[in-house]
């Protein structure tokens, strides 16, 4: 079974984020890393391919400047290869444009199953996976907390407000997984060494037959018009606990009449 995992390489979340004051795009400086949210999809893909008795896990990603450092992390976990779309004209691409690029790249891998996170940790738009499914003419099941493949179909436990639904869909299908569904493995030393020589196919949008006018800032049909500081919430009273701070909490709750 061939599985594609959509992965995003993002700026280190530990570094303070910023928007470029001119272009209003997210500033991406320094080495990009694998989005933590994507580690669950990679792990799930490896387990499912294993359970199906073989098949390849292919990563698909879009990033500026041929960036592969995040992809190497996922390759070190055990993915076989990666397709990276990197093209200067992609700067400023909106979520739908991103979906068009990724859908075209995914098609080349002819997957039985496409996995993605429910949303990325930096942009957190959360619509790209479903847009990809629609562009590829495939069904999708979002917010999966359990995924099982049986023969030619997938069985998913999908998070709902009240609990969860059991959902079945024929393959090929796109599934988005919530965090915490599986325990992502740590890359072994052997895995890290092997990842260095695993194939990463780097494509331009011309390779995918996509017109530059459809993507990037020119293709984006939404724009950020302004960014301003929001009203600051004043910080309040600070109490250092010396064994009785709980009494201050109770007093505070009484004042608010929740007790």
């Amino acid at each position, binding site marked *: 079974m061939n599985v594609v995992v959509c992965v995003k390489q993002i700026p280190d979340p530990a570094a303070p984020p910023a928007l470029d004051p001119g272009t209003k795009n997210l500033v991406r400086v320094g080495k990009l890393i694998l989005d933590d949210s994507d580690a669950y999809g990679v792990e799930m893909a490896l387990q499912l391919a294993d359970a199906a008795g073989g098949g390849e896990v292919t990563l698909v990603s879009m990033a500026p400047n041929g960036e592969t450092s995040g992809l190497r992390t996922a390759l070190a976990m055990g993915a076989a290869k990666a397709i990276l779309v990197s093209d200067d004209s992609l700067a400023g691409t909106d979520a739908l444009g991103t979906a068009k690029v990724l859908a075209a790249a995914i098609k080349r891998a002819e997957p039985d199953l496409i996995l993605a996170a429910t949303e990325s940790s930096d942009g957190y738009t959360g619509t790209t996976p479903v847009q990809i*499914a629609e562009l590829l*003419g495939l069904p999708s099941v979002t917010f999966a907390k359990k995924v099982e493949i049986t023969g030619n179909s997938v069985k998913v436990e999908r*998070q709902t407000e009240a609990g969860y639904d059991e*959902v079945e869909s024929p393959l090929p299908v796109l599934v988005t997984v919530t965090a915490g569904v599986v325990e992502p493995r740590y890359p072994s030393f052997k895995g890290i060494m092997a990842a260095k020589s695993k194939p990463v196919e780097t494509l331009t949008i011309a390779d995918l037959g996509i017109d530059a006018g459809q993507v990037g800032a020119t293709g984006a049909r*939404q724009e*950020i018009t302004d960014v301003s500081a929001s009203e600051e*919430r004043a910080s309040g009273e600070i109490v250092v606990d010396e*064994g009785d701070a709980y009494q201050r*909490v109770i007093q*505070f709750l009484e004042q608010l009449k929740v007790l």
Partner: protein
Amino acid sequence: MSIDKIWVLAEVADGKPITASLELISHAKSLAGTVEAVAYGEETSAIAGTLGEYGATTVHDVGDLGGSLPGAPVADAIAAAIEAGNGPDAILFPATYDGRDIAGRLSAKIDRPVLTNVVGLVAGDGGLITQHAVFGGAQIATARFVGDGPGLFVVRAKSFPAETSGGGQAEVVAAAATESGPTNGAKIVASHVEERTGPKLDEANVVVSGGRGLGEKENYALIEELASLLKGAAGASRAIVDAGWVPYSHQVGQTGKTVKPTVYVACGISGATQHLVGMKNSKNIVAINKDQDAPIFSVADLGIVGDVHKVLPKLIEALKARG
């Protein structure tokens, strides 16, 4: 583009429109002359009265989906209405599991982008202007669509109040989905309701949330116990959801639920931007954390610099003693 007509996705739970949809209908009424709802399922005619009260004049009824996940068939029905020339200038979706699916599908289908994580929506010169809380709500970005076609907006819950405006029953008109083929392949075969004691996380008057500072999964029981004593709901930071301690449905934050309770009690939560955006508009915030430099203290009305393992048991014991 002037905004004359807005559609709002009306989701139904327990036989009633969800609050997030009613918030959008009542806000849409302040932005456009005509507000209409789109609904699906077996109970559409039963909710037409409520939708009317909040300001919708018409309900476009996609009807029973026969067990399909709503994303594909509902997006198809809306796309067909737009194609037929009956479409609105803007469509508002609540940021729910199904709302996001339908918006994403529709976006790709009609080739219009979608703006998500919207927390404010105002009328501007060239159409609607959105507001988005970025970087944990420290900054507000405003955005808008360019080009033709309806604007698609996915709006976070609790961005607007839900207020009735005294309208009569909305008229129900059929908006049947067309055959969507393979995209409609995902079917619900069974639904499971998880036992929940106490109020819903996003409706509770008190929310008690736990984070990494709890140390280990077992200690989340302290959060549940305190929440129960305060007749509130138990929430969580993304860190402990990612670690598999509690399910995603407990997550408060950017990726997760927005809550605005009377009191929010953050226990062992450092206050990453990811978390702050989901709770900083709570009316009162109590934070307990042993790191006095934790960002959570910058939004707390009452900050306790202390060890949750010591403070919480005492607090719980004292509340129990009150009976």
